[in-house]
């Protein structure tokens, strides 16, 4: 074995490095295909379009735009963590959207009805959102562990059950005087939460609204990053997390070594759901620019956040810290898409993300093939050289 082969083998045996390389290649392929589509659709604007994706939008109004970028990354990171937590236990939580919606509803209720809580309203709102999301995640987990119902199918069903249940509750809950409490009929959407329930913008003396003036930002992004540290700690530094990951690696081996697989599956789905519900709470309790707040529209379409979470988790290969970067990355190109809308329609960003996910789904096989091919051509050259 010569030195080239040795270094190549060394690189290829370092899984973290190979994963990072594969992700980067997937991103390059995704952006290249996006560029080709832009060239076909709008040949004149394609180059400036690609510059937008690479960040030319940051050059004007920089602090505000960075703040918005971080604000929109928040839900991507939290939802990515939710999906990744289930992935680590070998579960595909495609139901994160439903858990997000149910959490959003709980936080909305607290934010509108429980104004007596004062300063703690947003905290209680987020806690209730997590509990509601966890409750919604419990069902697919329990059905899987007790009845062997595949979590992908059941959590798709619970997406719709959750959405329709929330729509039903919002359009029927009335206050003491018999008026709809949450639903604003004149606009066909929910009311905003009380101003007192908005998530604060300063965190232990760090005032984000003065660092990023005029932006949507609140402390959600800091909570999201702290959450990624927490998820890392639970997964990699506790016995519980070890058991979950063991189930994810090889459930038969885990069971054989005395790990209660059923308990792990149910708990993992509850925690995953709680994280997704937390994301829903962060959304509905956000104050945004000059306290305009967020609303929930009653339409029969699932919210996209859970599916975006799947993208983030897949892109980061479920690594908790990778998810922070993946969320920031996707939010970055989404912002680029937002600012270039007059040139090229911003769906191009979703196309690029989808291509990246598809490419990374098939990249594992490519990794081994490319490695074999590299080693083979090298040894053939050597033979010919002799």
């Amino acid at each position, binding site marked *: 074995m010569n030195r080239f082969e040795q270094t190549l083998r060394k690189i290829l045996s370092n899984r973290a490095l190979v994963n990072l390389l594969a992700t980067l290649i997937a991103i390059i392929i995704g952006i290249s295909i996006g560029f080709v589509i832009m060239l076909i659709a709008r040949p004149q604007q394609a180059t400036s379009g690609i510059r937008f994706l690479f960040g030319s939008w940051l050059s004007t109004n920089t602090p505000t735009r960075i703040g918005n970028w971080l604000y929109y990354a928040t839900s991507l990171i939290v939802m990515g963590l939710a999906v990744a937590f289930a992935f680590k236990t070998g579960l595909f939580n*495609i139901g994160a959207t439903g858990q997000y919606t149910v959490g959003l509803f709980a936080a909305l209720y607290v934010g509108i009805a429980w104004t007596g809580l004062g300063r703690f309203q947003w905290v209680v709102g987020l806690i209730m959102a997590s509990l509601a999301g966890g409750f919604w995640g419990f*069902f697919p987990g329990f059905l899987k562990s007790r009845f062997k119902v595949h979590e992908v199918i059941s959590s798709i*069903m619970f997406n719709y059950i959750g959405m*329709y249940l929330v729509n039903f509750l919002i359009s029927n809950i009335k206050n003491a005087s018999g008026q709809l409490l949450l639903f604003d009929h004149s606009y066909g959407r929910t009311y905003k939460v009380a101003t007192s329930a908005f998530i604060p913008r300063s965190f232990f003396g760090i005032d984000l609204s003065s660092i990023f003036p005029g932006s949507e930002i609140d402390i959600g992004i800091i909570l999201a990053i702290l959450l990624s540290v927490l998820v890392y700690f639970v997964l990699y530094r506790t016995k519980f997390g070890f058991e979950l990951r063991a189930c994810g690696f090889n459930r038969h081996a885990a069971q054989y070594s005395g790990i209660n697989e059923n308990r792990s599956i149910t708990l993992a789905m509850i925690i995953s759901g709680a994280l997704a519900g937390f994301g829903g709470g962060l959304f509905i309790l956000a104050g945004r620019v000059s306290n305009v707040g967020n609303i929930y529209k009653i339409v029969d379409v699932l919210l996209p956040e859970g599916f975006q979470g799947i993208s983030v988790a897949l892109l980061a290969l479920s690594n908790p810290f990778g998810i922070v970067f993946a969320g920031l990355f996707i939010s970055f190109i989404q912002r680029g898409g937002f600012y270039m809308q007059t040139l090229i*329609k911003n769906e191009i960003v979703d*196309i690029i993300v*989808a*291509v990246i996910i598809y490419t990374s789904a*098939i990249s594992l096989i490519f990794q081994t093939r490319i490695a074999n091919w590299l080693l083979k051509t090298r040894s053939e050259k050597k033979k010919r050289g002799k």
Partner: protein
Amino acid sequence: MGWFEISMLILNAMLLFSIPLLITALGGMFSEKSGVVNISLEGIMVFGSFFSILFINIMQNQFPSINPTLLILMAMVVAIVSGVLLSTLLAFSAVNLKANQVIGGTAINLLATPLVVFIARTLNDVRTVQFSNNFTISKVPLLGDIPIIGEIFFRNTTLLTYIGFFIVILASVVITKTKFGLRLSSVGEHPGAADSVGINVYKMRWAGVMISGGLAGLGGLAFVIASSVSFDGNVIGYGFLALAVMIFGQWKPWRIFMAALFFGLMSALAFKYSLIPGLESFSLGYLFRMFPYVATIIALILTSNKSRVPKASGIPYDQGSR
């Protein structure tokens, strides 16, 4: 309106809602029978409906006097072809590259909607594609006069309804009576055994996925034709509902037919319940719409022990590990 008229209206609407579910669920069945979970039915429906509706839109503008029956037959071909094309992405990743089928399917779902909305907005600046829906058959001659059955099945329908019936019959014959169907099922049950007697597992799985793509594309067209006069970028979860129909129907064509009718009835009730005397004042629509999904969960629990799910469904086949 009397009870009779109301129930006729609801049953007639049931049929309209059932047909897209039926066609797409049968597609899902072909894919799963061959051993590939096709979670991308939703995306393929979007894709098929977009290109066929775009085709109808262009043809109606170019040839205003075109015969609607001819046009819808041509649009069906467009829907099937575009569905098959998108499904090759799943077949390639799931069969040849042995990637995780759920992830591959999810990526296709993520891709389909933005891609078609991007094309629509690049062409027209709006995400909707309009067409004039003159495909409704208000009454089939003779058959439409039969009491009850005529009113449910042969009035206010489209050609796609009868195509749907035809596909159920065809699917049931193909799956249970032909060499191809039996081989397809064997590949989904035990690919190693099938391979050892000379059946090309990869080819059969490609066939299963492509049939599912064609049918899901057609289902997408049926969805738009049945429900509106424009395509607006989604099929409100009918692809996922079709997966539920397929499971509820236990991967058997006639049971899938019954399941599709049941799910269609629930959708019809959700939209028309306010006609029923005594229910006008509630907003119960969301509860009715929830019901098919709850029913699926219950069915999944009840059948969990004797589920007819193809044994190798979802597991990539590697010839080396035979």
